[in-house]
């Protein structure tokens, strides 16, 4: 047993941090009215791709690095610390879906290009209400010889407008649910950017009208639970790392900012808030790393661990990023400071793929089933 990170993991994290601190700037997003279009989204992707990160979790057989969820957590967390806008997350979700659910041919056709950074993906699960569990099937798939025709609407699709290929949950005639692979650049696919409050992330609606696709090999019943656990873990990892970054910058500010002749961090109201924040950071990190380990090991508690991590980190990130604005005072509420970007990422991560409360409902269901 060893609950601590290994030297290798710490080094991986440190090298990612060094790289990102040097390469990523939010300056252009901190201009009022900025959107993700101003966020160096494509340029960041080129840098990230050059590091080989798109292939992190792709098997070595498909030219990836074949790393575990723990390794991924090191790098994904660092990206979330800087909020680095890029199509990394959508591509990651898509790569997971193809790697777990795709046929050998599908994997061979797509994954090496993804690992090389030349192909980007996105995963379309939710409908306009945001519901994902089970995946919405407002989209339907109709068999057309060897291929399928997809029609319907998806929403909250991360990085859809950047993606070359979409992985879409849809319902077959007859009612089976499955995932389908679609080329994004075809007449039947329309992608509309959402005016998303988290301007460091690209999120879009996708409308399909007889779009041509192929079906992933795996059943929905196999693929979705596996995929969902990883998606939740990834969002939790982002949230935990963001929480820690917000705490750190708030502590720094509280040491410097003076009021009535002393640093504001010497007032108990601030001081105790920061101690509470550290507690939330410690808990977020513990929950997330446990999920990373459990998913890496395909442990029986993986689903539970991922749901717990998403539940805890969602609330903690929202609370800490909100408290951070309060401690910075009015300046922390302006567009020109980073505080609001974290606050918005926190709230967006909390809602995507099921809120903290929805995750807690799943946790208690799992615990009851186990007890029964």
């Amino acid at each position, binding site marked *: 047993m060893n609950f601590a990170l290994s030297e290798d993991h710490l080094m991986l994290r440190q090298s990612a941090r060094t790289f990102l601190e040097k390469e990523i700037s939010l300056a252009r997003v901190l201009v009022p*009215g900025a959107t993700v279009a101003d966020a160096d989204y494509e340029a960041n992707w080129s840098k990230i791709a050059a590091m080989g990160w798109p292939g992190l979790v792709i098997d070595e057989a498909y030219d990836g690095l074949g790393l575990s969820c723990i390794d991924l957590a090191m790098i994904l967390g660092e990206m979330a610390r800087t909020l680095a806008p890029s199509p990394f997350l959508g591509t990651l979700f898509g790569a997971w879906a193809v790697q777990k659910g795709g046929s050998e041919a599908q994997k061979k056709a797509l994954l090496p290009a993804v690992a090389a950074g030349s192909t980007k993906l996105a995963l379309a699960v*939710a409908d*306009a*209400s945001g519901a994902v569990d089970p995946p919405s099937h407002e989209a339907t798939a109709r068999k057309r010889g060897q291929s399928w025709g997809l029609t319907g609407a998806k929403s909250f699709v991360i990085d859809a407008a950047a993606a070359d290929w979409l992985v879409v949950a849809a319902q077959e005639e007859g009612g089976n649910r499955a995932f389908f692979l679609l080329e994004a650049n075809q007449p039947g696919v329309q992608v509309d950017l959402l005016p*998303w409050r988290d301007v460091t992330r690209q999120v879009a609606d996708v409308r399909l009208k007889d779009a041509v696709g192929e079906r992933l090999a795996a059943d929905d019943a196999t693929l979705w639970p596996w995929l969902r656990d990883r998606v939740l873990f990834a969002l939790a990892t982002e949230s935990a790392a963001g929480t820690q970054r917000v705490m750190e910058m708030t502590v720094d500010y509280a040491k410097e900012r003076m009021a009535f002749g002393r640093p504001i961090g010497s007032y108990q109201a601030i001081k105790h808030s920061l101690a509470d924040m550290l507690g939330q950071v410690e808990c977020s990190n513990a929950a997330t790393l446990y999920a990373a380990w459990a998913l890496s090991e395909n442990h029986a508690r993986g689903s539970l661990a991922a749901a717990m991590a998403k539940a805890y980190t969602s609330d903690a990130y929202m609370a800490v990023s909100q408290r951070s604005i*309060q401690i910075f005072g009015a300046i922390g509420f*302006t*567009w020109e400071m980073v505080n609001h970007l974290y606050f918005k990422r926190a709230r967006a991560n909390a809602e995507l793929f099921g809120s903290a409360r929805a995750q807690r409902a799943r946790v208690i269901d799992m615990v009851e089933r186990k007890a029964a």
Partner: protein
Amino acid sequence: MDFELPGEDHPKRQEIRAWFEANPHPSGLALAQAGFAVPHWPRPWGLEADAELQLIIDQEMKRAGVHVPRNPVAINNCAQSLLTHGTEAQRQHFLWPALSGEHTWCMLFSEPSGGSDLGNLRTVARLDGDHYVIKGHKIWTSLAHKAKVGVLVARTDPDQPKHKGLSEFLVDMDTPGIRVRPIIDMSAHENEYNEVFLEDVRIPADRLLGKEGEGWALCTTQLQTERVALSRPGAIWGHGPSARELVEGLAEIRALADGAIRDEAAQIFVEGEILRLLACRALSDRMNAKAPGPEGAIHKMLAAPHGQRVVDLAKRSQGARGMIAGEKPFPSQLAGDDPYDDWDYAFWFSQAVTLGVGTQEVLKNVVAERMLGLPRELDPTARLPWAEARRKQA
């Protein structure tokens, strides 16, 4: 004790209603001259109205669809100081344009280095013949981008302790040397606040309000909104949606079926109803000629986080859709005239309500010290000459 508000047949109400029936579309000046801009002021500006009459006037204006001229800094905060501290010339020059809404006012108080420690401000006003020359940098100035008149606090004597060397001025905002920069906040909405840069701004010496050194007393009085807080239950400083509208909205989208949301909504609803009662009690206290005390601080201490809870639950009820800019949580609740009536804007702006006009921490200190008599926070800089204290901190 009687919790009924003045009824339909109240004679004063009849009188007020008759005025609005006779004057269905009054100009700002007509409203002001009828005494409706500041009914609690003495004549000729107001009607010497007690709290009950103020409430009636508010209700009847609402009924007639008429608004007091939008000039909150003058009408709620600052103009009253001219009655007691202004010269007759200042009153004649400034008051009617202020009350009629012709001249929008703003408060040039806060500074970037100050935060809660407003008394530590650095803007200086130096007497130079028959002018003051002002140099400094103000921030969080509502309405500066629309204002004709700025009420400015500046340091006239740096060798006095920080609260003693301040003076207040009435500044024409189009005086050369004044530059206004809007601050866009996280809501991305049209700016609420501005920064104001003052670079060797020369103003006539007769724009000093009161005497040199009275600035701190004037501006702290002005920051306590003087006009009775009428029953304003809205989430954002009394404006915008209230807990009742939250519950109606949640019922409309059937969100109350969820046990946890139902309980949370009920809790917020109860809180909101109690805050209405507290606001009415403050009104009664005024009617009973009890002087306004620090209860304003306790009301804001309770109302600000309550308002945040109202808009937060509405936002969470939207799920992921709540992150789409401009998305409304409840289909049938359309935005009214007030920009805060927009639920989405109210949510993203709501972080400000525990920051503006006293942070939540400062309010709790005020409540604990002034209402409960607890020991004051130490301020080692309070008694030193300001310039010396500043050197020590540098």
